[in-house]
């Protein structure tokens, strides 16, 4: 390994997220945890282990400690590496062999991606957040709309997002078919980074800042693909199918496959069948069995706040299993310091530990066949959250609203007292 000083290991996919878990709670994950520890130790690599104050999902931890900096490059053997583009870094998800090359050489061999800009304009509607923006973009460009391209998310609505929101937005870049996506760094970025434990300080901070301020696209920059997405008054979004681009507004209806072009029809029919839905059906009102708030998409402090705002004074509906897994140990501590954990627990949520948890179903958490799950994660693929489990991707507000209602509801009506 060429640069162990620039290499870090995170234990996120395989540890259990059950309250009070340890490395033995998920026996299936134990060999992976052991292998990661051993390989890291042999190579002198720091592991963010379970008892580490900086433990958590790698895509959450790396930004929050200031390891990720604008203009830096990151390689991660996980497709959601793109998340950290929210800080203006360029990240590449890669496979195992490609990672081996990075570890041995500290460089990555690439075919230069084409350039794509997604211009996001308009002001979001009530209870819509970065996740809804990302889902809306997906519904417009599709799950291969960004293939072969690196995406810059630009425009007033991207600028208006907090850094956490930008991390959420960039997280779903890979769902759009792109390996890398970013938001150009600006004052929002710099303010967020200042004082983070690993970020430069003092005179070095000033020097870095001068450089970072140059990291923006020229006004006349050329993009191979340039799309504008209007998010004016955007409603909370939800997926109805088994592809993250199969998205409708929460007050919408599932599409009617018979009105689709032939190449989309078969996929839509299969997705509807898997999800136990008919074409042209209202998505509101469907019964919900499980709710998961977590993952590298939506488990940062503002996400938990957003959900807690809905949960305060309400109870999880009977028969619904609701789990929250904060994105990192730090998020968990901060949430507890401001009493968010009590709001979740009083409502009837399981206040879990930080891990990938139900997102990939690789740590013992998951749903049962036929269960309808509202999940703040990024993939609604068949069997992703358990064999036969039906995943609807949503933002934290919609997930919380479903938990207390026992069915899919329009969170805007719930908050107004109409549902």
């Amino acid at each position, binding site marked *: 390994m060429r640069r162990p000083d620039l290499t870090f290991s995170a234990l996120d996919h395989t540890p259990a997220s059950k309250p009070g878990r340890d490395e033995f709670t998920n026996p*299936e994950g134990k060999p992976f945890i052991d292998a990661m520890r051993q390989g890291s130790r042999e190579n002198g690599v720091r592991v963010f282990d379970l008892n580490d104050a900086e433990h958590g999902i790698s895509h959450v931890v790396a930004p929050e400690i200031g390891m990720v900096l604008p203009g830096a490059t990151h390689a991660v053997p996980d497709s959601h590496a793109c998340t950290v583009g929210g800080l203006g870094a360029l990240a590449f998800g890669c*496979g195992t062999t490609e990672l081996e090359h990075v570890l041995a050489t500290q460089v990555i*061999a690439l075919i230069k991606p084409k350039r794509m800009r997604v211009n996001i304009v308009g002001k979001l509607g009530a209870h819509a957040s970065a996740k809804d923006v990302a889902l809306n973009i997906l519904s417009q460009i599709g799950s291969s709309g960004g293939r072969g391209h690196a995406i810059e998310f630009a425009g007033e609505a991207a600028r208006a997002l907090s850094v956490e929101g930008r991390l959420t937005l960039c997280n779903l870049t890979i769902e759009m*078919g792109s390996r890398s996506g970013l938001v150009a760094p600006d004052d929002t970025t710099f303010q967020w980074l200042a004082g983070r434990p690993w970020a*430069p300080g003092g005179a070095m901070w000033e020097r870095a800042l001068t450089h970072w301020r140059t990291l923006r696209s020229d006004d006349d920059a050329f993009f191979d693909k340039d799309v504008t997405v209007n998010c004016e008054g955007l409603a909370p979004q939800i997926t109805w199918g088994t592809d993250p681009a199969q998205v409708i507004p929460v007050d919408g209806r599932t599409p009617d496959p018979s009105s689709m072009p032939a190449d989309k029809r078969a996929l839509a029919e299969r997705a509807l069948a898997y999800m136990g839905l008919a074409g042209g059906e209202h998505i509101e009102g469907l019964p919900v069995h499980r709710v998961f708030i977590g993952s590298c998409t939506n488990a940062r402090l503002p996400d938990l706040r957003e959900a807690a705002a809905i949960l305060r004074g309400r109870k999880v509906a009977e028969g619904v299993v609701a789990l929250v897994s904060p994105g990192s140990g730090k998020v968990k501590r901060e949430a507890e310091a401001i009493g968010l954990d009590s709001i979740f627990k009083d409502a009837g949520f399981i206040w879990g530990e930080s891990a990938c948890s139900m997102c990939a179903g690789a740590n013992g958490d998951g749903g049962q066949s036929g269960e309808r799950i509202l999940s703040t994660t990024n993939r609604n*693929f068949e069997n992703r959250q358990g064999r036969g489990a039906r995943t609807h991707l949503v933002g934290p507000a919609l997930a919380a609203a479903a938990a207390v209602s026992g069915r899919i509801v329009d969170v805007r009506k719930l908050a107004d007292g109409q549902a």
Partner: protein
Amino acid sequence: MKAFTKAAGVAIPFLENDVNTDQIAPVGGGVKLHEDYTETLFKNRRRRDDGSIDESFVFNSPQFRRGAILVTGHNFGCGSSRESAVWVFQAIGVSCIIARSFADIYRENCLQNGVLALALPEADAARLELSVLSANGAPVFSVDLVERTIEGPDGLHIRFEISEAERTRLLEGLDDIGLTLKQLPEIEAWEKRMASEAPWAQHANASSL
């Protein structure tokens, strides 16, 4: 890395679009550090909900249990970057995957394992798909990287394009790490330059600078 010059034999038709790696190589329920990849391949889709084998699923058909070439649709291998989604095909003998298009990371993962990943233009893909469907498991296809051709029954002959760099890498089974390390002096020079121009970016913990 294993060199690739030619794949010959059965071509498996799996004509779906947007097939993700979660389907190809599921991780939920019984994931092991060292697994039998022939069993991992489409583990969930090979069985019905009641646990019985779905004989109509292509990878369960006797003639397609093994094959040399996989023929598939658009955006193949989207989703997770897990490399096991390539290894599962190698486990059943596949060393060439021909799709209408590939997800970026998946294509790279193929290349890293000496698997030729070819995206064909629509017209060629359509011809090949028809031919593969009608051959129904007869071992009559070949893909030749030296000649850059795909051959099949009834005179099927398709010439394909591939970048010279990629072709050489596959033909010679070149070890990427060795190749890159030949450029170590440049890498070191770059690091040195960055250490003075942007010192914060060459230290993981920049606050200690």
